[in-house]
């Protein structure tokens, strides 16, 4: 077992445990903090796959921005374990069944997919996630979708400023 294998299993266990704790926590704030832990574990996986850019962008966007917004909303609504609505038993049962069906479908898709049979993640190989490679691909093969989405982001930002200016 090399150090990367150990890290892989550690990060996988961490990701799964944190994901379960997101659902199991009574307190919404704890759920969010566990979700942040999930993002950290996934970023660790990206680094093992030599995709440093994806790893750090995952942290900046999800852990740094979106989760802060989640925290904002939950803190302002003052949700906690006392105010969490108690669903009745039938609702819970329906949730378990539909979730289980989705899980089965996902597993069967992964098992039957030809690309994934007998393959494990190749660690520390390839340079597809490095910023250099990614930038070249984005500005050659995918330049139109990339430009359109960047204009979209810019207009969203300008829109926020315009809405603020109204008052």
């Amino acid at each position, binding site marked *: *077992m*090399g*150090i990367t294998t*150990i890290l892989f299993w550690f990060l996988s266990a961490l990701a799964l445990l944190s994901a379960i704790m997101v659902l199991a926590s009574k*307190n919404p*704030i704890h759920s969010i*903090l566990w979700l*942040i832990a999930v993002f950290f574990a996934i970023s660790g996986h990206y680094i093992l796959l030599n995709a*440093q*850019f994806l790893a*750090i*962008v995952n*942290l*900046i966007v999800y*852990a*740094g*921005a979106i989760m*802060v917004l989640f*925290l*904002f909303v939950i*803190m*302002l609504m003052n949700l906690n374990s006392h105010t969490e609505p108690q669903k009745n038993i039938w609702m819970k049962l329906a949730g378990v069944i539909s979730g289980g069906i989705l899980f089965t479908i996902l597993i069967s898709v992964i098992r039957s997919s030809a690309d994934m049979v007998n393959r494990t993640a190749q660690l520390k190989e390839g340079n597809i996630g*490095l*910023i*250099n490679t990614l930038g070249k691909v984005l500005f050659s093969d995918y330049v139109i979708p990339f430009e359109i989405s960047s204009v979209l982001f*810019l207009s969203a*930002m300008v829109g*926020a*400023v315009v809405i*603020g*200016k109204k008052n």
Partner: protein
Amino acid sequence: MTLLALDWFLLIEKLILIAIVITASLVIAMYATYAERKVAAVMQDRIGPNRAGPFGLLQPLADGLKLFFKEEIIPDSSNRFLFILGPCLAMLTAMMTCAVVPWGSSVEIAGRTIQLQIADINIGILYVFGVVSLGVYGIMIGGWASNNKFSLMAALRGASQVISYELAMGISLIALLMLTGSLSIKTIVEQQVGHVWNIVYQPVGFLIFFVCAMAECNRAPFDLPEAESELNMGYHQEYSSMKLGFYLFSEYINMFISSAIMASLYFGGYDVPFLGHAHLAPNLLAIIGVVAFLVKIFIFIFVFMWIRWTLPRFRYDQLMNLGWKALIPLALANMLVTAVVILLRG
């Protein structure tokens, strides 16, 4: 044992480097508190701390001891775990950034070339950015876990302030990245060694970055999360003893680290102009470089303090107006002009 197939010398070298950098950051942050009081005293025509030791030099130690010996109070209705986690996170995120700062070029000891940087990752600037965006959690979790309305308001203010200014900061950095073509801080510094510093090409970008750094550190005039007059004290109102100390201290570490980042991105890092012509021994050059870098950092820290004791605090709407209506359009224009100039010059 394939498990232990590591370069042990590299590991030991890096551990020593990490220990030195962390100790240095803590000591410098400690004396920044002393410097802050002295600067404030000079600006207000007072003497400042002068009782503990010669010139009051032991004052930071006395302050630390005082904080350690104070009674530790955890409010009854607070969330105990998160209440303790808050200051830990604030301290952790403050310290994490120093991993990618190049403190000097390289020294040679016993035939080994040792880089004076903990990790030269090819996404250095994004790493700094990521850690800065995680820095909000220390404030938010601490403020919420205190279960106090004032703390919560302050935490929300702090978080929205940091998010707002991150945007302008990022855009001003993009203009710099277009010039350098690299995200590694080490490469950016190396490009400036022996050449013109980036401040010449990016004066507006630097100004925006500086204002944003001040806002990200929650320094006056942007210290809205700690506005005593409106919020009693701020997000750390319920904290006592060294947990309060951690919050206050992390602000000084943040100031030190952001000064280091600004010095390396815009002011040549460990570069000393015209020193390359002097033909000195490489090790001596590296040491002079480290000293020059620290001098640049201290100048920035002084400017931070100078501004704090000169300008009054912004109102909250003024703060948001500055961030969204002034800095972001300015940063966008700066980016556009830089792009056009680069395009025309080929």
